[in-house]
C-alpha cells in the first residue's frame, strides 16, 4: 500500500463517526462576522490606511498624479540611491524625473545582483486600510517577488481610491489565488528578542508608501 493510500485509509477510519452521506456543506459555517469594521468615506478609508501604515513604521507620502514623478525622485535621492530596479510594466512617467540608473527586472538578475541595487519602485494590487497592508501580486507594474525583497529600499505606489479597500475580506475578493502574492504591513520586523518589536531584519528596512490621488 502506498503511503498516500495508508494515510487516506487512516483518515477515513478515524472519521467513522461522521454519517455516511454527510456533505462538507452540511457542517454549518456562519459567516456573521463583519465585512468591514465601520463605515467610512473613501477619503476616511485612505486616512485610516495612512495611519495604520505609519503605526507600523512605513513612511507615508501623499501626492496627485502630476506630482508623483517628482516625489519618487525625491525619495530616491533622500536614500542616496544609485540604482533602481524597474518592473517591466511600471508606468514610464513615474521615473521621468529621476536620474538614478534603472535596472530592468529580468530573469537574468541573480540574488547577488539584486543585493547590489539601492532601491525598487512598484505599484500594487490592493491595499487594506484596517490592517495597514499592501498586497503585491507580481503583476507587470510590480514584477517578480524577489525584486521587492532583496533591495533595502522599497517605494510602493497605491492609487487612491481605486486600489484601497477597508478590510481583509474585501481584499481577498479582488485577488487571484493563482498569482504569487506578498502581503506587506510595514517594513520587515521581529519580536523575537523579549517580545519587543524591532523594525528591520531581512526585507527592505525602508518602506516608502505613496498614496496617489487619481483624477
Amino acid at each position, binding site marked *: 500500500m*502506498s*503511503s498516500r493510500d*495508508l*494515510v*487516506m485509509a*487512516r*483518515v477515513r*477510519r*478515524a*472519521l*467513522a463517526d*461522521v454519517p455516511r452521506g*454527510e456533505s*462538507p456543506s452540511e*457542517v454549518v*459555517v*456562519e*459567516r*456573521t*462576522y*463583519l465585512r468591514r*469594521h465601520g463605515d467610512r468615506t473613501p477619503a476616511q478609508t485612505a486616512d485610516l490606511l495612512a495611519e495604520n501604515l505609519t503605526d*507600523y513604521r512605513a513612511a507615508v507620502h501623499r501626492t496627485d498624479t502630476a506630482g508623483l514623478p517628482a516625489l519618487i525622485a525625491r525619495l530616491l535621492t533622500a536614500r542616496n540611491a544609485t540604482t533602481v530596479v524597474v518592473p517591466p510594466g511600471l508606468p514610464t512617467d513615474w521615473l521621468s524625473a529621476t536620474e538614478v540608473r534603472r535596472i530592468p527586472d529580468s*530573469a537574468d538578475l541573480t*540574488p*547577488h545582483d539584486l*543585493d547590489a541595487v539601492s532601491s525598487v519602485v512598484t505599484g500594487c494590487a490592493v491595499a487594506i486600510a*484596517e490592517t495597514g497592508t499592501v498586497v503585491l501580486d*507580481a503583476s507587470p507594474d510590480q514584477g*517578480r*517577488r*524577489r525584486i521587492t*525583497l*532583496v533591495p533595502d529600499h522599497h517605494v510602493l505606489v497605491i492609487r487612491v481610491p481605486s486600489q484601497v479597500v477597508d478590510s*481583509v*475580506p474585501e481584499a*481577498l475578493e479582488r485577488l487571484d*489565488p*493563482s*498569482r*504569487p*502574492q*506578498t*502581503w506587506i*504591513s*510595514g*517594513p*520587515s*520586523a*521581529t*519580536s*523575537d*528578542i*523579549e517580545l*519587543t518589536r*524591532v523594525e*528591520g*531584519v*531581512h*526585507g527592505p528596512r525602508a518602506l516608502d508608501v505613496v498614496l496617489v490621488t487619481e483624477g
Partner: protein
Amino acid sequence: MSGPGHATYLGMPAFPEAADTSTRDTRLRANLRHATHTIRTKRATAVAELDDWGRLRAAGAAIKDRTLRHLDHYLERLESAVTAAGGQVHWAADADEANRIVTELVRATGEHEVVKVKSMATQEIGLNDALAEAGITAYETDLAELIVQLGDDLPSHILVPAIHRNRSEIRDIFAERMARWGRPAPDGLTDAPADLAEAARLHLREKFLNAKVAVSGANFMVAETGTLVVVESEGNGRMCLTLPDTLISVVGIEKVVPTFQDLEVFLQLLPRSSTAERMNPYTSMWTGTSDDDGPRTFHLVLLDNGRTDTLADTVGRQALRCIRCSACLNVCPVYERAGGHAYGSAYPGPIGAILTPQLRGTQSALDASLPYASSLCGACYEVCPVAIDIPEILVHLRERVVEGGPVSVRGTRAVIKPAKGHAAERAAMRAARWALDHPSVLRTGQRLASRTRRLHPRRLPGPGRAWSDTRELPAVPAESFRDWWQRTRATNDRSTP
C-alpha cells in the same frame, strides 16, 4: 559540514521533574514573566479593536471542523490542485518517512545545505538531525530559531522559540557562536535588540543569496486552489520561499482549509492572537510554481505522524483546529512558571499538553504526565482564536491515562492499559465511590476522623506523600457537616426534605 551539536527532546523527564528544576531557575522565570506579560496586554488590545471577534472565532472553529470532518475530501482536492499548478505532492505516514522523503529530495538536487523557514512540523519530526546524519546542513533563518540553533538549545515557545533567553544571553550566543556557522558577529556587538537583529541580517544574508534549496512549513493550504500560505515577520520566509530553485514544504494534513475565501477569517484571527498585530509584516502565498518567479521545483510533503490518531478521538479531535498562534502559552500560569522545555516536545504550553499526548500516545512517563501540566483555570480556552476547549481535552486525556481504554495507534484501533503510576488514585476513587454509596459507612468514617483529629499526621504516608510534599493537609473539623446540620436544624425544620 554539519553544525556543532544537536539538541533533541528524546529521553526528557516527566513534566513534574522537569518543572521542579525549571521553576527554581529565577532568570528563566524573570525572562518568561516579562515576555508573556508584555504580549498578553498587547493581544487584548489588538483583539478589542474588532467588534466581531467572537463571530470570527466561531467561524474559524466551524471552518476547521468542516475541514476535519471531511479531511479525506479536502486532501484529495488539495493534492489535485497543487499538482495541476506544477507542484509535486508526497505523503508521509510518520516522522521517519517525512525525513526520508526530504533527505532524498535534497540529495537529488546535489546540494549539501538548505535554508529553513521556521516550521513547527519540521521541529516535530526532528528534520535537522535527520538531514545532519545524511551530511546536509540545515540553516535556521528565523531570528529566534537561529538563537536556538547557535546555542545548541531547544525551542521553548511556538512563536518565539528563544523566549527563555534575554538580550544579554542572546548577545553572548551571537558573539561566541556565529563564526562557527558562517559570518561572525560584528566586533563590539551590544545587547540592543536592533543591533542583534542587524547581526542576524548580516550573518544570514550570504546564506539567502547562495541558497539553492529551502525547506518550509505552511500556516494554511487552500484545498480548492492549491495555494500555500506562510505568515511571518522578518522576511526570512520570503527569502526562502522566493530565492532558491527548489522549495520543499512539510505540512501537517490538518493545515488544509476549504476555500480561498476562508483565509479572510484566519488572516484576521492569527496575527492578532499571535504577535498582537493588526497584520504581520509579511504574508506569502504561492500556488504551485510560476514562470521565472520563485522556485522552479516545488514539493509538498503531507505529514500524518499521529494526526489521524488524534482525529479518531471525537473529544480530542478539536486540538487539530490549532493554528499555532501561541496565545494559550502566553496566558498560562503553568507555562509562565515551568517554561517550555518542561513539556518535552516541539509543542509546549496548554496546546502541547493536549497535542503531544495525542500525537505520540500516552505510553511514556513524560507523555502521560502532560495532561496534568495544568491547573484547569481555563485561560487558554478563553484566548484560543479557534475555541479549542483545552480543559475539556485535558480532563479527557487524564481519564485515558488513569483508566486506559480504546485509542487509535498509527491508524489501528487498540486498547491501552491503565497507567501503573495511578493505582493508588484508582483505589482511592473506588473507595470513595463505595463510601459515598453507603451513607452509614460515610457517617461512621467522618465521626472517626473527627475524634482522632489530634493524632493526624501533617504529611500523608505512602503514595500520598508526594502530594502533601507541596501542600498543607486540610484540618478535619471537630464535627462533620451532617452532624452539625442534624444537631442545629433537623429538629426545628422538619418540613425541609
